[in-house]
């Protein structure tokens, strides 16, 4: 196709110019028309993308706020509505405690490990490190329900610890690990090489350089990544659904069956009572608010840190 044949010699530059002008003029209106249509399409796309998302958030707030304001939503245990008292759904105190407990346990387990592995993959370029790196980045995309299956296989089947808060935390921590590893690796790699070289040039051991110079410089990125991993875990439903067991009592204990906000929401919406379906909106709003606050906090904190460092 790109072999230019000698016949092309016979076309003079005048002919080229004439053909070009003719084609340019002949296609101009169509080209401008297409461009306008596609510009409209891009605007339409942004509107089409925004409408459902705005509608969703609006509905979530309109339906959710009354639920959050309902007395007892945060403090009471859930109550199954009956035919005689269809509106009394109690609260979600057990789910709140269950979610907090699971997030705390999962964070305690996964954050230190994730950060250490992330530092390792960032600093080492051995074969093993690159294998770990590939595994981590592959696992980031693994469907979350598989972590539920894994937790079931390990905690319930292999260790015989039963459906429990522990199993839920286990699933969440396996889910958070690869995210933490990747974000830590990026944060550590973003530390300027010159900073590290400066430490090494001063005669510090590589480990001292890493701990005293590189890690403090990467803290912002690492913490931001951790907060985002936690906020992702807060709303996770599928893996917990399989192993949490479900409980109508408040419990912190790892080996008790528990409940979680996301799971309660999922179960409430499947109910035939309108009051429970409405409650699902409230739980959803609570989750979204918590997640927004977490991600905003991470952003603002990172922005402020960056400003201080400059």
């Amino acid at each position, binding site marked *: 196709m790109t072999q230019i044949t000698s016949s092309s010699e016979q076309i003079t530059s005048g002919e080229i110019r004439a053909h070009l002008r003719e084609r340019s003029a002949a296609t101009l209106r169509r080209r401008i028309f297409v461009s306008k249509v596609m510009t409209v399409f891009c605007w339409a796309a942004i509107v089409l993308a925004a409408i459902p998302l705005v509608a*969703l958030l609006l509905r979530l707030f309109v339906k959710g706020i009354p639920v959050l304001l309902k007395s007892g939503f945060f403090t009471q245990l859930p109550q199954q509505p009956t035919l005689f008292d269809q509106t009394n759904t109690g609260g979600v105190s057990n789910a709140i405690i269950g979610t907090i407990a699971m997030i705390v346990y999962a964070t305690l387990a996964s954050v230190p490990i994730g950060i*250490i592995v992330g530092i390792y993959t960032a600093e080492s370029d051995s074969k093993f490190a690159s294998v770990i790196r590939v595994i981590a980045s592959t696992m980031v995309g*693994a469907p979350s329900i598989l972590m539920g299956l894994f937790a079931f296989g390990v905690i319930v089947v*292999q260790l015989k610890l039963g459906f429990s808060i522990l199993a839920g935390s286990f699933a969440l921590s396996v889910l958070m690990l690869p995210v933490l590893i990747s974000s830590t690796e990026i944060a550590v790699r973003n530390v300027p090489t010159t900073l590290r070289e400066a430490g090494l040039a001063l005669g510090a051991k590589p480990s001292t350089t890493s701990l005293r110079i590189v890690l403090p410089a990467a803290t912002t990125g690492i913490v931001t990544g951790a907060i985002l991993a936690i906020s992702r875990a807060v709303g996770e439903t599928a893996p917990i659904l399989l192993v949490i067991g479900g409980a109508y009592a408040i419990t912190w204990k790892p080996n008790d069956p528990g409940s979680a906000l996301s799971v309660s929401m999922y179960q409430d919406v499947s109910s035939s009572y309108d009051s429970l379906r409405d409650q699902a909106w409230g739980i959803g709003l609570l989750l979204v608010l918590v997640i927004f606050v977490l991600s905003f906090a991470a952003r603002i904190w990172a922005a402020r840190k960056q400003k201080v460092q400059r």
Partner: protein
Amino acid sequence: MVVAANSSQTAAGAEGRRPSASARGAYEWTLLVVASLFGIVSVWFVGTIIWQSVSTFQSQGLYLLTGVNWVPGAGTGQPSQYGGRAMIIGTIETSLIAMVIAVVIGTGTALAINFFVPQKMKTFVATVVELLAAVPSVVYGVWGMLVLAPWFLNTIGPFLSSLPGGTAVLGTTVAGKSLLLAGIVLAIMVLPTYVAISREVIGAVPHELVEASLSLGATRWQTLWRTVIPTARIGLFGATSLSLGRAIGETVAVSLVCGGSVGTTFKPLEPGVTIAGWIATQWGEAVGSDQIGALFALGAILMVVSLAMSMFSRRLVAQQRRAAAVV
């Protein structure tokens, strides 16, 4: 002296030049041991899911992929039948619908954010998009079920069915919940993720190329379509495969809106099931029976597909990037 030699290397190079075990202190050992622990966990993860599904693979064989019946045999005296055809096709169908919508609308949105939205609003829009990407999928599912499904049942479904050939191709909706609705909910769910990434990669296309293209007499759209999108294609591919991964593995949002019945026709307006959604809905009744193994087997299929996809796209992106890095 060693330190001095290292200092002239890049950081990664400096680490790589210390392979001998004798040089490892407590710090290096900690890193290595914890990293190995993670390696073990990931092998354990794959192993557990495979291990739990072996018995089903043995008893069902290919029927797991092609079979149409999902009938636990417990208590009936009959052998269990676990056919996954409906779940597999449902997963493919919903993901495809979702990706077509998300890629078309998402790319248009990303182009609009980069080239049409006023500079002052860009940061705001970008922040909103990223926040939306953090909304849990169960929220999308609840909204789809309580808001979209009734609307589908009363308005969209009948309209689509009334189109010429609509019933034959799309089917008729009975509850609003359907494969099409699941695909649409998935599309809405992955849109923020897709837009967040593609907005960034499109924004990274050098402005000089845009100007070069315009200076040759290209219209604005010709510039976007023939210069910007081809230049950003690696990143757009990455955004697509990440979104596809989320769509394939999504569980609760889909299970709330897909209708949940094991069908045989797979018409978009009719209810169906997906692998992940089926695992979640059957779980309660499956625990304690051989059905749990069948669900694990479905999970294993999901795992193999999603891990393979993720590795494949990583490799492709890396390859493309290496080719582009010559620039």
